[in-house]
């Protein structure tokens, strides 16, 4: 029974996309309704699938396959694979997608091309679900690209304005760099294995057909794709700019789902990564560095959405770190919890922006009384994010820290410092926007309508509750041999100190202003500007482009113009010159021609004579 129905999960949003695109385009609310109906059915089915997994056990992955393309050497399939990982991701994607789509009803109500918005959202959900359920590399890659396209379309939703269009292009191009590595890796592994299928490749890796070194390179190449999609350090530049898109989009795509695709891919191919220790090391280091790097930048951002964007990058760094040190369950659990509270935070920020019509925190302030629902849900999300005890974040982050401490002390230190910064910048956001006296923009702010508040409340509840299911989650993901080590209360107590210290520092700075933040900024000017300018990474890329790439292309252009075209024109000139020279042979005198005739005959005769013909 089960696999057949499962096909509906990705199919329904896709169907919605088609229906909206072709039929219900002119009616805005009708399209919205179709989209929401599709995603809600998909949500219910996902819940059903998860419950089926919990009851029937997730050891044996149920696979349904349809041959899509057969050539002499390769045969590609489209399939659905239901196991622990995909089950969880299904639930995560569908719940967040549902919440966002309901929220969008309010947020995007004045938007004229609402049906286009919902069409893209449905297509995104369909491709994300397709990616999650993929049984082979080809389907994974196709959906991977589809997701990239949808993110481009949604970031650049308001294409008439320059900023969103530019941001969409930037996002697309940067992820392309990553996808290049991903494609090369994919080709290497698939041609070597002779098949796209994960199961076959897993069997071959287990059978040790390839050396660790070769597997390492393939893994690192695949990780490039993940790094691109999940905005890890070298390729993170596109995510902060992606905030130009509508906030619900940011919430869905740039917080919960798409950016998590990279992490999910690493988790899905964990058998490949774990086969080569240095690949794992790379993942861990990149994850760690990204975590601390993004966290530091987030400290000084003024735009509320950019703070959240850098926070997402930092949390993704944590997930990669967890996977890098071998904790696939911990990484996935953090992804699970992070999806909910980060979506909550973004939607909260969205309702604040919706009310104040500005992104800059320093223009808001004193919204606590005006928007109580938003305020309290936002506080719940922040606490979850900071990792304070009862909230979801605490359990997942603690698991990661616990794991990293065991493996690599230096990365552990980075992680701890990262979580300190996280706590600090979240309290900064809350103090600046909600507490304190009302500033310019918050004059006419008012609470957002219920259609936006309901998703906030649901997500808030989830952020609180999700943490407690960590043991069940671990048993589901690890299968059977649950670590059962449970929560080491002592370690937890120690690690609890860090977020609380962060919150305290944030309150002192921004509420009591004992060391005035501006004064601090002046004293640590160089550090402050460095963070403000985001470590000059964008400038570095521009410099690279201008100096190296353009310089080489200028050289190549010169070569093409002078050498290649030169040769062609040269030949033309040569023929023309010989033509003019040969013209003088035509003297017009018959006897000269006769001389040529007999001369030729004589020469031929001589040649024949010499050649011994006679």
């Amino acid at each position: 029974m089960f696999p057949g129905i499962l096909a509906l999960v990705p199919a329904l949003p896709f169907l919605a996309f088609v229906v909206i695109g072709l039929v219900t385009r002119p009616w805005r609310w009708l399209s919205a309704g179709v989209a929401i109906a599709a995603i809600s059915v998909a949500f219910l089915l996902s819940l059903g699938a998860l419950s089926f997994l919990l009851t029937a056990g997730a050891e044996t992955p149920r696979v349904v396959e349809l041959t899509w393309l057969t050539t002499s050497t390769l045969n590609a399939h489209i399939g659905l694979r239901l196991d622990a990982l995909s089950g969880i991701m299904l639930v995560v994607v569908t719940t967040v997608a549902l919440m966002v789509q309901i929220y969008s009803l309010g947020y995007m109500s004045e938007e004229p091309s609402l049906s286009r918005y919902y069409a893209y959202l449905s297509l995104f959900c369909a491709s994300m679900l397709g990616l999650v359920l993929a049984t082979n590399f080809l389907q994974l890659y196709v959906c991977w690209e589809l997701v990239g396209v949808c993110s481009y379309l949604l970031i650049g939703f308001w294409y008439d304005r320059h900023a969103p269009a530019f941001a969409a292009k930037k996002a697309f191009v940067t992820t392309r760099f990553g996808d290049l590595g991903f494609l090369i890796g994919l080709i290497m592994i698939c041609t070597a294995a002779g098949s796209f299928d994960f199961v076959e490749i897993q069997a071959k890796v287990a059978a040790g057909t390839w050396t660790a070194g070769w597997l390492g390179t393939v893994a690192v190449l695949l990780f490039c794709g993940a790094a691109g999609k999940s905005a890890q350090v070298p390729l993170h530049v596109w995510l902060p700019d992606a905030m130009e898109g509508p906030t619900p989009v940011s919430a869905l795509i740039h917080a919960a789902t798409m950016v998590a695709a990279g992490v999910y891919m690493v988790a899905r191919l964990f058998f490949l990564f774990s086969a080569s220790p240095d690949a794992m090391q790379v993942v861990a280091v990149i994850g760690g560095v990204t975590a601390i790097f993004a966290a530091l930048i987030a400290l000084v951002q003024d735009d509320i959405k950019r703070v959240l964007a850098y926070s997402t990058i930092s949390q993704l760094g944590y997930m990669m770190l967890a996977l890098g040190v071998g904790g696939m369950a911990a990484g996935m659990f953090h992804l699970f919890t992070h999806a909910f509270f980060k979506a909550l935070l973004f939607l909260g920020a969205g309702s604040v922006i919706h009310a104040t019509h500005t992104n800059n925190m320093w223009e808001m302030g004193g919204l606590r009384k005006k928007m109580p629902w938003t305020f309290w849900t936002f506080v719940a999300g922040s606490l979850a994010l900071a990792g304070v005890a009862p909230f979801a974040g605490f359990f997942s982050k603690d698991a990661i820290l616990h794991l990293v401490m065991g493996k690599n002390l230096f990365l552990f230190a980075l992680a701890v410092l990262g979580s300190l910064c996280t706590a600090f910048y979240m309290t900064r956001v809350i103090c600046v926007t909600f507490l304190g006296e009302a500033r310019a923009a918050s004059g006419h702010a008012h609470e957002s309508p219920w259609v936006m508040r309901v998703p906030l409340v649901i997500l808030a509840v989830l952020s609180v509750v999700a943490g407690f299911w960590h043991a069940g989650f671990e048993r589901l993901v690890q299968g059977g041999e649950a670590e059962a080590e449970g929560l080491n209360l002592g370690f937890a107590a120690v690690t609890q100190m860090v977020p609380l210290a962060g919150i305290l520092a944030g309150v002192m700075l921004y509420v009591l202003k004992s060391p005035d933040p501006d004064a601090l900024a002046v004293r640590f000017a160089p550090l402050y500007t460095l963070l403000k300018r985001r470590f000059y990474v964008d400038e570095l890329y521009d410099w690279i482009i201008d100096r190296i790439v353009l310089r080489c292309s200028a050289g190549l252009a010169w070569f093409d113009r002078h050498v290649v075209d030169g040769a062609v024109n040269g030949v033309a000139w040569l023929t023309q010159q010989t033509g003019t020279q040969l013209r003088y042979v035509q003297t017009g005198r018959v006897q000269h021609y006769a001389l040529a005739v007999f001369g030729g005959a004589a020469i031929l005769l001589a040649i024949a004579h010499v050649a011994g013909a006679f």
Partner: protein
Amino acid sequence: MPADIAFAMLGVMTIGGALVAVGAGNLYRAVLGLMLCLVGMAGLFLLQRADFLAVAQVLIYVGGVAVLIVFAVILTEREGEPLAAAVNPRMVPAALILGAGLTAVLVSVLWRSTPAESPVADVTARTLAEALLNRYLVPFEAVSLLLLAALVGALLIAKEKES
């Protein structure tokens, strides 16, 4: 023996006639030289028992072409143009080398070859006729067409255009 004498005489006559035909400054003497050479050739044909060809050669060449050439020379003779400037000095060396060179090579080749001569039945007019009417019928009819074309062409070219 008498045949060899005749061959020598005719040979001298032919080559002498050719030399005069080419060398003589005065075109009338050149035509006479040509006639001498042609008659010599006819004699050589007679020696080779090719009677019809000898007669044809004399009848057409000496009786027709030579007359035509003489007429052409008379018609193109101009007061001012001395016939003496017969040879183009710039071309002489090249022509000499080519002419002599070609001849030398061919003669040397001929001298070294030893063709086996087989007694062959005389080609009388009757065998010639039989060949012409059967095997070579198409060229035979084409000859008449060729001559028609030559006549028409020459008349058109030579006739003064009544402008």
